């Protein structure tokens, strides 16, 4: 089993479009959308949902006014400023789910019910199975939901004896990103040749190094600034990230999105289509992608 995680640091560089294109080239794989905050891969893959499950991401404190004696201990103990007085109540948006108030309330006046923070799905797509999710609005624990969808993708790989998980990662370098890269074979960072793109690539590259995950880099919209694209390539090589190619700007990326297709399905022989295929081949040739990981 191998897993490739597509990341970017900066959002909107083309992670999802590239993931969908790779799904086309791969003979046997499971798709995993780890951008549970703002999932988009389903818009290209049109998944047919086979299983739907609630995601119970944690607990939330609720004060029972009938039992509360207004001693104020909970408010004093809560480090997240989630409890207010007159009457004592918990702000669900601020509650961290630590349970300290629940455990220490002398009156047993605080309940701590499990809460449903989202949904996750196992679906069929035209290229194979897909595990995806939707985190509830304003919910926490996106990291835990990312870990869950990746775990479910692993189960499917084992069941179907497939070989590869393609994981569409979230932007940034925080909690959900860290949850999406542990135990992966490698990450592919999709950069863009702008000052922001260069800054964010550096941070996500450092993150991959921190967790000792081999990193590859490609540049999308490379012709927007050829000099900066060349600089990204140099920086990648200096940092031992394998540079796997660059994709010219192509309006067809948007057109494909509108048609709910991957760029390969609408323009396989276009410059961008050819560039994406080359990147896919280079990625799969990377030594890290030859290593079998235990499921």
């Amino acid at each position, binding site marked *: 089993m191998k897993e490739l995680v597509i990341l970017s640091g900066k959002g909107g560089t083309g992670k999802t479009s590239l993931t969908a294109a790779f799904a086309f080239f791969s003979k046997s794989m499971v798709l995993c959308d780890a951008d549970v905050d*703002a999932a988009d891969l389903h*818009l290209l893959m049109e998944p047919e949902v086979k299983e739907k499950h609630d995601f119970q991401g*944690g607990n939330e404190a609720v004060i029972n006014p009938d039992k509360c004696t207004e001693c104020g201990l909970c408010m004093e103990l809560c480090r997240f400023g989630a409890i207010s007085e007159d009457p004592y109540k918990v702000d669900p948006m601020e509650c961290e789910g630590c349970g300290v108030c629940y455990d220490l309330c002398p009156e047993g006046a605080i309940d701590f019910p499990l809460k449903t923070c989202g949904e996750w799905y196992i679906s069929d797509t035209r290229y194979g199975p897909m595990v995806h999710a939707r985190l509830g609005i*304003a919910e926490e624990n996106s990291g835990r939901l990312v870990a869950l969808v990746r775990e479910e993708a692993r189960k499917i790989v084992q069941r179907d004896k497939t070989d590869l998980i393609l994981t569409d990662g979230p932007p940034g370098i925080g909690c959900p*990103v860290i949850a999406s890269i542990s135990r992966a074979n490698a990450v592919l960072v999709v950069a863009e040749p702008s000052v922001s793109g260069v800054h964010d690539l550096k941070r996500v590259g450092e993150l991959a190094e921190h967790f000792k995950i081999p990193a590859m880099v490609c540049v999308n919209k490379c012709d927007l600034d050829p000099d900066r694209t060349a600089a990204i390539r140099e920086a990648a090589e200096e940092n031992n990230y394998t540079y796997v190619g660059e994709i010219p700007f192509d309006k067809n990326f948007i057109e494909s999105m*509108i048609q709910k297709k991957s760029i390969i399905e609408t323009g396989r022989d276009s410059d961008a289509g050819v560039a994406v295929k080359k990147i896919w081949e280079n990625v799969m040739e990377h030594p890290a992608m030859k290593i079998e990981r235990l499921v």
Partner: protein
Amino acid sequence: MNISIASGKGGTGKTTVATNLAFSLGKNVQLMDCDVEEPNSHLFLNPVFREKEPVIAPIPVIDDTKCTYCKKCMEICRFGAIAVLSEKVVTFPELCHSCGGCKVICPEEAISESPRELGYIETGEAGNISFLQGYLTIGQVMSPPIIKKIRTYAKEGMVNIIDAPPGTSCPVIAAMKGADFVLLVTEPTPFGLNDLTLAVEAVKTMNLPCGIVINRAGMGNDDVKKYAEKEGVEVLMEIPFDREIARVYANGGLIAEKIPEYREKFLTLFDRIKELSSIGVNAE
């Protein structure tokens, strides 16, 4: 007045709008970059930083001489950050949410706390614009405390522009909470629309006034406009899909500076925000 610039989807132009709005206002304005995982506003405003302060959170330290291995700390911790073995206690600082439960519950008073650095905040100026940004340390997961700390520096009587992270979960909520107005930046594509829908839901859940900026207008289709109309959310500005604008952005430039008519457009945008905000037209 606090204006949060958010989006759902990443890369739609939050930073472009935040920095150009700040530049167009020019004075009595503070930019607060709360995208602490990947802060980019500084690349466009080139602030001079004068101060840097760490953002810390406490983590437990166990005194082995007092610990009786009763496991109460492990039981209260919902984050798996403490494991009590037969004669050893192991802590996992990166999993700790700093709730302090272990310290309070320990019957032997064997737990104290030491600071862990989550990231830092830098403060400075870009011309007459006050500037603040946060950085999450590589490998740390707790970005909301940094965002909340930045928000405490909002200045009364100033326009505080908050550049939010992408998404709709806890860090975004921390960057939008209590704002007088949320400006949602999107692009007219299916991905842009899908994530805008989530962002509008989040804003409505929080009961905040909001409006939409369509960036790269003309690149996709009209679905975002149709959605905005249906939801009753006003489209306040459109920035066209234009190679020159893309080039100015790519090089770290400001369109309001390089293409002067945009300064007027951002000022018009600000006037409309004032009218729609929870503070009303008298806000300054």
